[in-house]
């Protein structure tokens, strides 16, 4: 059934849009809020965590490096305090001291004794450095000036990167300096222990940005200048964190702190992408959840909207059907009443015509004795004509009586009827007529046919009407041989009694089948039917709470199916 007009479709579209919009937006707002708020707090906390953990690493390593340097310095100070210059200036002693120091820490490479002129007077280690003059070296100047010095990394005579710790002892002519070289490899290992994620690394720069340690990414070698250093924001506080993009466009998260009285800077850095990889994972997961969530919301909303709309449409159609039925019922009632009033009024003039006719008849009889032969012939004509008047008046009165029966509101006595009792009685009434017309009556009344509620005489009227119609149709097609009229009863859904009356008569044409229950519709010749029979039947069955349907094939027969609600306990 597709009878939606463009206007209805338009309204449907509007309703659909409005429902759909609401169904999407309403869950969408809390959904986005929840995701957004959760995401904000999660990322903030993650960022704080990452920064805090970098700060902690920097702080731990600063302490470790500082204490390492302090310890090595303390080692040397112990030696300078415990031994005299002359004692150390003996090969065996200095070797023994060096061995002992190496036991203290594997970081010591060699040990050397210097006089105030910077001459390397005694040396213990693997390089040939004894006798060389260091008076112009930066470290020597510094140690002579400050008493103790830890150098940056430099190449020196051995042409290898290293750094030294030097301690001055005594004063004036008795001044001497003890110097130890620290293994940069050992030192580097200590720093490069720092491994965070895939790209996290730690390294040391001096205050001019010269690299003091190996680094994991190893794009800048020891003693090379770090080009990034110039742009570092120099920390005022103990540990400083910032984000910086390097020349290749990679963003790094930095944590830096000063070491060694702002001589060195400990740098811990990690690619931002790596440091925040959980954050990015969270972002991706969030995005996926969001997209999926929105998709689910849209799909569900569309689905539910469709269901709601279908429901609305169904209700609309039901309402329309109900409305049509009501209109039809009201029209039927109106037509019935009108017709009844009309018929009643027609009866009075008919009565007068009848009297006039009777009067004329009597006068004509009187005259007939007084006229000649020719007059008699005319009189016959008049009598014939009068006969017609009588026939036509009777025909009118038959019609009005039929209409009045249709409009009659008799008292209806509803009672329990058993189809197995009432139907055979009614069939009995027509058996004679059927026999005359050569119609075979087939009864298939199932014994367990349920009882229903109705008025006996009304039910009888319905059945007789259907039987008579069927027999008329059969006679029309078969004459007086080969007719078949079948009456069946059965059950449907345990709720309805079905009475089916099938004939093999002329059938009903498709254009007529929709109209056969309408009042005054008839296919019978003029004067043979009022067109009220089936509409009365229809009304009666409806008043029993049942329905009546018809199926037919032209020139093959018709079937009338009556469904009546059965009595339920």
């Amino acid at each position, binding site marked *: 059934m597709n009878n939606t007009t463009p206007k209805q479709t338009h309204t449907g579209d509007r309703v659909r849009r409005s429902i759909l919009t609401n169904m999407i937006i309403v869950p969408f707002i809390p959904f986005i809020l929840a995701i957004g708020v959760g995401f904000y707090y999660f990322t903030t906390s993650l960022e704080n965590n990452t920064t805090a953990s970098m700060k902690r690493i920097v702080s731990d390593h600063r302490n470790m490096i500082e204490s390492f340097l302090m310890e090595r310095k303390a080692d040397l100070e112990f030696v300078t305090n415990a031994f005299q210059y002359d004692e150390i200036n003996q090969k065996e002693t200095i070797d023994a001291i060096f061995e002992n120091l190496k036991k203290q820490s594997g970081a010591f490479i060699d040990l050397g004794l210097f006089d105030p002129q910077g001459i390397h007077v005694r040396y213990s280690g693997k390089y040939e450095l004894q006798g060389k003059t260091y008076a112009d070296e930066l470290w020597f100047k510094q140690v002579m000036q400050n008493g103790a010095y830890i150098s940056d990394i430099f190449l020196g005579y051995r042409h290898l990167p290293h750094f030294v710790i030097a301690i001055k002892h005594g004063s004036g002519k008795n001044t001497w300096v003890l110097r130890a070289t620290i293994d940069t490899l050992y030192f580097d290992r200590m720093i490069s222990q720092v491994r965070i994620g895939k790209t996290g690394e730690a390294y040391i720069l001096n205050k001019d940005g010269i690299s003091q340690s190996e680094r994991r990414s190893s794009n800048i070698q020891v003693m090379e200048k770090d080009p990034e250093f110039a742009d570092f924001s120099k920390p005022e506080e103990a540990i400083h964190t910032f984000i910086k993009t390097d020349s290749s466009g990679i963003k790094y998260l930095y944590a830096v702190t000063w070491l060694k009285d702002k001589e060195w800077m400990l740098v811990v850095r990690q690619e931002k992408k790596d440091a925040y990889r959980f954050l990015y994972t969270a972002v991706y997961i969030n995005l996926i959840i969001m997209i999926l969530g929105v998709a689910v919301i849209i799909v569900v909303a569309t689905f539910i909207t469709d269901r709601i709309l279908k429901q609305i449409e169904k209700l609309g159609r039901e309402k329309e059907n109900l409305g049509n039925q009501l209109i039809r019922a009201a029209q039927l009632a109106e037509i019935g009443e009108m017709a009844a009033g009309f*018929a009643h009024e027609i009866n*009075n003039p008919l*009565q*007068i015509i009848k*009297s006039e006719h009777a009067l004329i008849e*009597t006068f004509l009889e009187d005259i007939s004795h007084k006229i000649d032969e020719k007059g008699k012939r005319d009189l016959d004509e008049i009598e014939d004509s009068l006969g017609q008047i009588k026939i036509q008046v009777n025909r009118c009165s038959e019609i009005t009586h039929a209409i*009045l029966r249709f*409009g*009659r509101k008799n008292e209806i006595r509803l009672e329990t009827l058993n189809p197995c009792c009432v139907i055979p009685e009614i069939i009995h009434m027509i058996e004679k007529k059927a026999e005359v017309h050569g119609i075979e009556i087939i009864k298939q009344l199932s014994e367990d046919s349920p009882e229903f509620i109705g008025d006996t005489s009304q039910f009888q009227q319905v059945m007789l009407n259907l039987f008579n119609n069927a027999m008329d149709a059969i006679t029309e097609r078969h004459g007086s041989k080969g007719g078949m009229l079948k009456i069946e009863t059965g059950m449907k859904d345990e709720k309805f009694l079905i009475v089916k009356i099938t004939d093999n008569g002329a059938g009903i044409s498709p254009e007529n089948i929709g109209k056969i229950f309408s009042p005054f519709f008839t296919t019978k010749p003029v004067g043979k039917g009022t067109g009220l029979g089936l509409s009365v039947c229809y009304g009666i069955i409806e008043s029993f709470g049942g329905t009546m349907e018809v199926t037919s094939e032209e020139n093959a027969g018709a079937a009338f199916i009556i469904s009546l609600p059965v009595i339920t306990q």
Partner: protein
Amino acid sequence: MEKLKMMLVDDEERYLQTTAKLIEKKGYEVLTAGSGEEALEKLRVQTVHVVVLDMKMPGMDGNETLKAIKAMYPLVEVIMLTGHATVDSAIDGLRNGAFDYLMKPADLDQILEKSLDAFEKRQRIEEKIRVAQMKIL
């Protein structure tokens, strides 16, 4: 032997005239009245055996007229003339003592037949009354 004397009551003037003529031609005496009131008026002054009464009339309708006739002249027999829609009121009429009813449009022969039956009944009752009076005397 007494002859049937009847009265037709209907609001259709022409029907009264024609039917009266016909009945007279058949040899019976007939009165006509155009309303219930007129019928009662005429009954007061003349003897009538059978009244043929239309159910639907302006003013006093058939049933009211019937009740009045039966109350004042219980021996007068009444035949109701009814359209189909007023069959129920015809049944009321039978309860109120009408002799019978006829469906419009009715043939004159039917009317006469029923009227004669009614007349016969009336004569039987009058006979009984006479016999009863004889016994008393």
